[in-house]
């Protein structure tokens, strides 16, 4: 359960006269679901990178439950992200040589010395929940829809307070896209996680509680 509060955030890139992202003030309540929309280049990816701590915020404050991640060093942001964020990306980023279950467990394995107790049953449970029947199946042999469902299970494995999905349905056919959208929304609600989805998918957008419309790095009304 994480609530976001952004103050005076400006992200600038060298050589660009205007900030890539300029958010004077924004807050999201814990458990809120938000769609992030806007044309490409409007700052959606930068927004996601900043609120997940993948990129350093230039100036301003990005606080999740009063923890300002803009003030954390890179290692600290990595640790915070490992604890608090589940990521779903447009092109899955699953690792082809590994099974579905190993993929779900990979972030846990890499961020803990030992796999936390109960994590393996949880991975199987989640895979069953997203409709993957054979956890030992190599992801390389799966359809795109199945892969994204594995990615959803992976995002949820660590019980994150925040789930961030970047165009989760854009590379899927309509049917698989709808299934993934359903799963994301349902599972986030079940877990009580805050959900931010960057998307162009109208059906997914309308299921979100709120729409954040970005244009040229600024929030439009």
């Amino acid at each position, binding site marked *: 359960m994480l609530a976001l509060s952004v103050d005076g955030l400006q992200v600038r890139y060298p050589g660009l006269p205007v900030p890539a992202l300029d958010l004077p003030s924004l807050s999201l309540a814990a458990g809120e679901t938000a769609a992030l929309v806007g044309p490409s280049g409007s700052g959606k990816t930068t927004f996601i990178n900043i609120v997940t701590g993948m990129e350093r915020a230039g100036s301003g404050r990005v606080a999740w439950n009063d923890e300002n991640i803009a003030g954390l060093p890179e290692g600290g942001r990595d640790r915070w992200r490992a604890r608090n964020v589940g990521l779903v*990306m447009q092109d899955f980023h699953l690792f082809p040589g590994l099974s579905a279950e190993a993929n779900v467990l990979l972030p846990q394995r890499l961020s803990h010395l030992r796999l936390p107790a109960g994590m393996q049953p949880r991975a199987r449970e989640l895979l069953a929940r997203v409709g993957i029947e054979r956890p030992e199946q190599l992801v390389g042999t799966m359809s795109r829809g199945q892969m994204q469902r594995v990615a959803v299970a992976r995002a949820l494995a660590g019980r994150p307070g925040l789930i961030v999905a970047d165009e989760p349905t854009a590379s899927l056919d309509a049917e698989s896209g709808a299934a993934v959208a359903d799963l994301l929304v349902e599972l986030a609600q079940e877990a009580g996680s805050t959900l931010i989805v960057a998307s162009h998918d109208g059906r997914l957008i309308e299921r979100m509680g709120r729409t954040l419309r970005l244009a040229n790095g600024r929030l439009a009304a």
Partner: protein
Amino acid sequence: MFHFILADLRRNWIGALILALLIALATALGVTVTLQERALRLGSARAAAAFDLVVGAAGSETQLILSSIFLQSAPLPLLPPETLATLRADPRVQNAVPVGFGDFVAGYPIVGTTSDAVEMLGGLGEGEGFSHMGDAIVGAQVSRAIGDSFHPFHGAVGEAGEVHSHVEYRAVGRMAPTGTPWDRAILVPIQSVWATHADHEHGHEPEQTAGLAAVASVPHDHDHGPGFAGEAVDESGLLHTDNPGVPAILVKPKSIADAYNLRQHYRTETTLAVFPGEVLTRLYGTLGDARRILGFVATGAQVLVGAAILMVVAVHVLQRRRQIGALRAFGAPRPVVMGMVWMEVFILVAAGVICGFAIGYAIVRAISGYLARNSGVAMPVEFQTADLWTLLFLLAACAAATLLPALIAYRQTPAQALRS
């Protein structure tokens, strides 16, 4: 973590295999140079170990050793006959056996000597020593059975020679293996060699030709006839001076002091006394220079291969920046990602280096086996403690070098990696 590394290696197994193979071959090159040189050195040193002192006529020390110990036939000047007689009577001498060469049979050198030489060389494996002029003792590697008969050819190994059809030897014993070129030798009584050559080299000036082929002036029976082979060997003649002399005498002194005394005593204008060890040491000096040059070449090749491979790996890591970025995005700590990239590369390189040692060892075994079959010199192929240090040093160097791709991975932020 290991899961991930293994899965990644399995997925790119062809590239990984080729990299490891290249590293293995480059390593094997260096290992081969080191091990082969060592095998040659140890093999020749051990072959010479049975011989304390070699006395020959004045001439080349190296040639004397090559001919008398390594049985590389070459014309040697003859010692005057009294040298052998004096040496055998010398109280400082435990044993002095003559060696006379000049004939061969089917590629095996025939060495004329005395029966006590067999004991000096390590004894009989089977059969008995020679007691008749026509008796022969074959070396452990000679493919003649006890009871076989043969005619000696005049000349040297590998040359077409004239057959001494009137002389026939019969193998009566076989020596125990010695790991020296003598395993390929056929030992016969020196008296029979004298007699054989006296017969056919009639008329040559002893000073002008060399080896036992030069024997000219022995009183002997021109018509050997069937009785020759059956004549008993008369070793009393060795103490007389009515023989043509021998090219070399292998001497076993009674003590080390005696050895130095004798060496001193026989370094004269007409005779030469050498410790095989000192000649070999000189040869190794030359060999060592060659080894160093080969070593530099091998090291250069290794460095080049290493640099090329590092480049390939670095490019590979750059190509995988998305994957590496994704790992970071999913919460893998930076040191873990770096460790994974490092370990994956290091596993490949280390496997290559270790395989390289094995391949080098196998190559040297094969070469040494071939050389041993052809020369009789047993070549010990062995690793020494120093090699372990070399291996550890190489692995440490690889561990350091493979940090480069790992550092590239370390420097990528997850956002950078995902943006591409």
